[in-house]
Each structure stands twice: as C-alpha cells, then as structure tokens.
C-alpha cells in the first residue's frame, strides 16, 4: 500500500506543478528567448524541491502547521505582515486561475466569459465544501497529468536537442541585443512561477491532514524529488513548445487558448481536448490550493480550529476564509481586468514576499530544539541558504524590473 501511496503522491505532485502563471511565462520565455532560459527552470525546480522537502519534513516531525510557527518565531508584527502579504498574493493567484478557467470554458463552449466566472465560483464552492481533502488532492493532481500532452507535443515538434541542452547552461543575451533587462525580468518571473510559496504551505498542511509522522520522511523526500522534478520537465516542455510554436509566429502566448491551439495544430481534436482538460484540472487545482492556503494560514495564525478533517461546523471561521477568498477572487476577474495581467502581478508580487514566507521554514528546520535529529543536514542547510540568497536578490530586483520593462513588454 505504501508503494501505491508513494506512486500517487508523485503523480499528484507532478500534475499539480503547473498553473496559469507558469504556462504563460514558460511559453513566452520560449517564444522570446528560445531555449536560453531552460537553466532557470532547472534552478527553480531544484529550489522548490528543497523547500518542499523542508516543509514536508517540518510538518511530519512537528505534526503542526507552518503558520503557527511563523507567529511564534517572528512575533506578532512581522508575523501579521507575512500573513497579510501571503494571503494577498494567494488571492491574486486564485483570481488568475479562475479567470484562466473561464477563458478555457469560453474557448470550449462559446458561453459568455462573465457567466463562466460565476459558474467557476459555484463549482469551487461546491467542490471544496463537499469533497474530502484526499479526493480533491487526487482528482485535480492526477487529472492535471493530462498536461503531459505538452511533453508529447514538444517531442513531436522535433526540437534541436543540442540547442535544448545548451539552454541548461546559464547564458546572458549579448549586450546590444537590447533585451538584457527583459531577460532578467523573465529569469525572476520564471523562478517565481516555479517556487510559488502556496505550494510549500499547502503541501505542509496536506501532510498534517494526512497525519504524517517522522516515518513518512522517506516518502516525503521521494514525492518531492521525483514529483517536482517531473513537474519541472512538464514546465520545460511548455518552454520548448513556446519556442517552436510562438517563436516563428512572433505572437505572445497571452491566453491559455494559444497553448491549446498549439496542441491542436499537431494532434488535432484529441490534442485540443486533452490540453483543455489538462489545463482545467491544473488551474482548478491551483485555485483550490491557493484558497485553502489563505484559510490555513489565517486560521493557524490566529489559533482557530482548521482543516478539512474537521466538519465545517467545527471550523466555521476556517471555512469562511476560503469561501471569502473564492468570492473575492471571482470579483477581481469579474471587474473585467485581463486575467493574464492579474497573473503577471501575482507572479511579481509573489517573488517580492518570497523571502518573508520562506524564512520561517529555514529558521525552524535548522532548529534542533524543535526538529531533533531531523533538523537540516549539511545539504538542506547549504541549499536552503543558497536559495534564500537567490530569492532575496530576485525579490529586490522584481519591481524595478517590472517597471523598467514596462510590464514585461520589453
């Protein structure tokens, strides 16, 4: 049974890896910079593996969620700032996913966009209310694997594998090409889209919901390393598709519809519907995770009962949190703001607060009082701090680059 659990865990992690921000930025990165940003995808993937492992390990060892630790360690002021920042970013991301889903449904059905947003809202409220945690995790994670059609797509478009391999070596566009700033912006955006904090916080809360103990540490490591690595392959294939499909046509990926059309161009109707379905489950999974993440963080911070393992009646404020987040997210996209713009802002602001949200994880996982023998070893410590420096640099550079590149327009 353990093997099955492990297998499902890996597949779920892989299927849940991609969301609208990654899709948009990966495809655009390929379209503008060919394969030259592949090394950033690898860098970000290893980063999320490192923090995912730490988050899972902390949750399994303490049997306690991460956000109450934030309050204990950072104190009420910094802790509240972290809470507010992470909730706002999660809310923005949720809005982006809902908007993207409405766009997908519009492509498939032709129904009006705004009506589809309300439909999506109703869908999410019902699913999260009635479906158990495990069910949600599995359904959206496993069906998100349909995104694998893009790996097939990339393969079938016969990329120059030599060029692809070179993309994994860091390179900077030559000065005079006029795109250095944009390159830097995309580097940061790609790292951010791969290392979104809600993934680690949701993963840790999930470990608590599944009642992990220190015996599950091996499972944790396997799921995180294999699952996220495969997820990274998925993300990289989107970049390759971006280069091969968008590059020659000089179009901006912009809409998830473009990705679906890319699949259709190669695989026909089957490709189109697989891509649409895969994207739906991936984005829906992300919407649910971000909404629940807001609820987890808020409830844990204030000491309220929380968790899908509790009946809604016992944890009403927790439930109220995710309901309100879904409603507010829907309202954001109902205003008519371009969901792709919302995506852009959510990715940029996410990287700005990344150091705030990852610092508690680093501090706790190193602490031998709390973690005992399971505190960070040399590898986790070194990689953890290395990535902390990386995200700190990215956090500082993000907003200036957003402004200098006129919102990624170059």
């Amino acid at each position, binding site marked *: 049974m353990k093997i099955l659990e492990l297998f499902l865990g890996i597949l779920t992690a892989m299927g849940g890896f991609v969301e609208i921000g990654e899709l948009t930025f990966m495809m655009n990165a390929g379209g503008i910079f060919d394969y030259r940003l592949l090394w950033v995808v690898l860098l970000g993937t290893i980063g999320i593996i490192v923090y995912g492992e730490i988050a899972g390990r902390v949750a399994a060892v303490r049997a*306690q969620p991460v956000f109450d630790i934030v309050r204990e360690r950072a104190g*009420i002021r910094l802790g509240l700032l972290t809470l507010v920042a992470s909730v706002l970013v999660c809310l923005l991301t949720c809005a982006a996913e809902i908007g993207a889903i409405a766009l997908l449904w519009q492509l498939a059905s032709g129904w009006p966009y705004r009506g589809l947003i309300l439909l999506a809202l109703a869908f999410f409220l019902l699913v999260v*209310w009635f479906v158990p945690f495990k069910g949600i995790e599995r359904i959206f994670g496993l069906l998100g694997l349909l995104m694998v059609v893009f790996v097939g797509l990339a393969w079938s478009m016969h990329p120059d594998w030599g060029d692809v391999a070179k993309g994994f070596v860091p390179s900077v566009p030559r000065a005079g090409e006029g795109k250095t700033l944009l390159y830097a912006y995309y580097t940061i955006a790609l790292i951010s889209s791969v290392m979104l904090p809600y993934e680690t916080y949701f993963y840790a809360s999930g470990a608590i919901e599944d009642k992990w103990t220190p015996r599950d540490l091996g499972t944790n490591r396997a799921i995180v390393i294999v699952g996220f690595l495969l997820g990274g392959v998925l993300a990289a294939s989107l970049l390759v598709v971006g280069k091969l499909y968008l590059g020659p046509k000089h179009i901006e990926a912009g809409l998830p519809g473009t990705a679906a059309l890319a699949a259709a161009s190669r695989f026909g109707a089957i490709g189109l519907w697989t891509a649409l379905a895969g994207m739906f489950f991936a984005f829906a999974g992300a919407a649910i995770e971000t909404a629940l993440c807001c609820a987890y963080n808020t409830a844990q911070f204030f000491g309220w009962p929380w968790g899908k*393992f*509790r009946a*809604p009646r016992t944890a009403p404020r927790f439930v109220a949190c995710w309901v309100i987040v879904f409603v507010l997210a829907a309202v954001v996209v109902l205003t008519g703001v371009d969901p792709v713009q919302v995506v852009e802002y959510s990715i940029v602001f996410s990287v700005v607060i990344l150091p705030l949200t990852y610092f508690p994880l680093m*501090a706790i996982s*190193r602490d031998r009082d709390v973690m005992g023998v399971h505190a960070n070893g040399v590898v986790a410590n070194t990689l953890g701090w290395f990535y902390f420096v990386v995200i700190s640099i990215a956090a500082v550079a993000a907003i200036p680059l957003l402004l200098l590149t006129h919102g990624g327009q170059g």
Partner: protein
Amino acid sequence: MSPRLPAPGCVDVYRQVLDHTLVDADDLPCGCVDDIELEGAPGEPLRIAALLVGPGAWGPRLPALFARLVRWMGGRQVVRVPWSEVAELGEQIRLRSNALRLGLGLTDRKLGLRIAKLPGSEAVSR
C-alpha cells in the same frame, strides 16, 4: 528568529508562552496567547496572573496606526484565562477545561450554529 534553549529549570515566558496556540482539554485549538497579565509591581513579587486572548490583546501590540485600525474594526474583545487553567506548556499550551467553559472560541461556536443549517456541514471529510 534565532533558536534559543531556555536555561534548564526555567521557563522563558516570551519564547515558550507568548504567541503559542492554545488547545483545550478536548484537543480543540481555541486561540493564541495574545498577551500575558502579570500581577505585582516593582518592589513586590511579580507573578503570572492570566493569559489574555483576543484582538483586544494583540491589537495594541501592533504599531499605533494598525492598533487603531484593529480597534476601529471592532477588535476589542479580550478573554482572560487564569494561569491556574494551564495544564501543560509545550509547543502548544494545553488547558485543563474545554474552550466553552473558559469563554474561548465563542465566535466559532456562534458561526458554527448558523452553518449547521447547511447540508454537509456535519460531514467529517477525511
């Protein structure tokens, strides 16, 4: 956020009590230690009298502008939990009685009664 071991045989009140989650006798989270009431004065012995729970307790700890904002949004409530109610000091502070008797978790209780009217509200989903 540096790690610290308290001196053996002592309790570091800031590190080990303040901002920790409270858990009642039935294992239900019922708030956080938002502030602590100390009884005494300079020249007299100082004792821990009670734990204070609620926005009225953590609000004033924020910078002035935000403290005012919290008060303005109606966050004045404080529940006083006498120190004698504390059963165990660990990562979470365990209390002797259940939350209701101590006046904690009332908001959840009231909201829970309203939610109970909806189908599926009792379902424990695992």
